[in-house]
């Protein structure tokens, strides 16, 4: 028996070696690059250059936070209404939300350029109904604005918010809702005291799944944004430029990673407390 379970544990060995070489070592090398100069000599100067990227960090956090809040506000009712449908329609809708994720992100984001351009679909439509004339402008400025970048983030990552919230909500035990009704809850307090607290885990995972890719994106801002650089743009530039600067790039990436870790830690703390409150 003991021998057998030892053999069982041994089959994980290839994976353990793999994850050591390709997960842990790369992060250590990133730390090494962040703490050395181009000649491999120890230095902290990479971090002193961070000041130049303060604005990019700030803008990225701001945009990603806005995108996350908007996505949550759009997704929560969607997931809630989905659970009210027939089971077969629920499954169909689940698929409909999931299908865009199988399409290439870049092409779908790029399609928004066609829609939002100065002579794009929205502006042409507004022109044809005479609204632009009424406002006395040639076109509405939709593309190359902060709004367009946030829209791109919301669009690209909204399935990652709808699906986890829906999964958690659809698993809520119906007898809990009946119990709440029997104890005299109206539908509002049923929502506030049963459905909302029990859907928290879905909300939390949705928030992280939208915030993390939004705060670190670079292609969305390149396609839809103005000249404002996000932190992802800076990192991409530092690593893929003709004369790349791996050292400063590593320092910024390290900070980005730490920032995401801190955000997730706070989120998890917050959700734990909420969970405790629900139990009481």
């Amino acid at each position, binding site marked *: 028996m003991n021998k057998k379970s030892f053999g069982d544990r041994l089959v994980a060995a290839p994976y353990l070696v793999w994850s050591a070489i390709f997960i842990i070592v790369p992060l250590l090398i*990133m730390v090494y690059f962040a703490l050395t100069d181009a000649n491999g000599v120890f230095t902290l100067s990479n971090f002193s250059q961070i000041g130049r990227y303060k604005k990019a960090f700030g803008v990225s956090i701001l945009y990603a936070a806005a995108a996350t809040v908007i996505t949550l506000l759009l997704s929560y009712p969607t997931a809630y209404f989905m659970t009210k449908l027939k089971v077969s329609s629920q499954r169909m809708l689940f698929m*409909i939300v999931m299908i865009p*994720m199988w399409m290439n992100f870049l092409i*779908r984001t790029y399609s928004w350029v066609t829609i939002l351009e100065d002579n794009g679909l929205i502006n042409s439509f507004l022109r044809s109904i005479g609204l632009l004339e009424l406002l006395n402008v040639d076109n509405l400025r939709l593309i190359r604005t902060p709004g367009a970048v946030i829209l791109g983030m919301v669009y690209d990552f909204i399935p990652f918010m709808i699906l986890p919230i829906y999964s958690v909500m659809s698993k809520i035990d119906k007898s809990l809702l009946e119990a709440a009704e029997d104890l005299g809850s109206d539908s509002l307090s049923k929502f506030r005291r049963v459905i909302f607290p029990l859907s928290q885990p879905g909300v939390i995972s949705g928030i992280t799944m939208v915030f993390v890719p939004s705060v*670190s994106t670079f292609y969305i801002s390149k396609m839809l944004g103005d000249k404002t650089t996000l932190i992802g743009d800076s*990192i991409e530039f530092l690593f893929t430029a003709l004369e790349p600067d791996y050292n400063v790039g*590593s320092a910024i990436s390290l900070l980005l990673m730490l920032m*995401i870790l801190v955000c997730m830690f706070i989120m998890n703390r917050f959700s734990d407390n909420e969970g405790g409150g629900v139990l009481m």
Partner: protein
Amino acid sequence: MKILSRIYIALIILFLYAPIAVMVLFSFNSSSSVWVFEGFSAKWYSELAMDDSMLTALRHTLIIAALSAVISTVLGTAAAVGISAMRNRIAKKLVMSVTQIPMMNADIVTGISLMLLFIFIGRLIGLREYLGFHTVLIAHITFNLPYVILSILPKLRQLDPHLSEAALDLGCTPLKAFFKVVVPSISTGIVTGFIMAFTLSLDDFVISQFTYGTYQTLPTFIYSMTKRSVKPDVYALSTIIFVTVFVLLILYNILQSKSEKKRTETKSY
């Protein structure tokens, strides 16, 4: 209320599908513009058949997706079995935390950290062209593994340990017991993990962007194209992919609800 909620869901679907509709429409455009629609034509579909660089990128994507899905499924299944047999709780927790790093971390950080590893090794052995097929494949296996492991582990937790003991008592070798007893009971987890790995790999852009070097995949090809000018044949290709996925999923959905109907019908007898 019911009507309002239906309208709301319809608007969300409109939002999700508007860019896809635009893409499908412009794939039939008779001019090469992706801004102005000038009339219907199927020329971009025949153009696509001759676009060697795009078809090469598509082939690379499919090869990487298939290989990385197979390798990460095999490695990940073994890993899940090994992890669930671990007795030391601290070691188990440590392994699980490391496993979650690629899922939690921003893709761009995973991508550049792997790129730095390859640069580092490339410098050590004095290679100049260190990025290519191998590095993309390694990167994709690395970010696929956690999803495979996490879709198999719950199935292993539900598995009755006495089953494989019984198989051993009845004279199976441990390997035979594994394939006859364990694998069938965790097969749904393995299949889910494989499908997830395959689709994640097909879709990945950010991590590939930092590791592809000379081995361009479809997403990195499209990215470099959007920086210059977009040819509508990429819309044609996306339309073909979209229609394929859509038909497959709808068929799957219909088959599933049919078999469920049958099951409830036989139950009620």
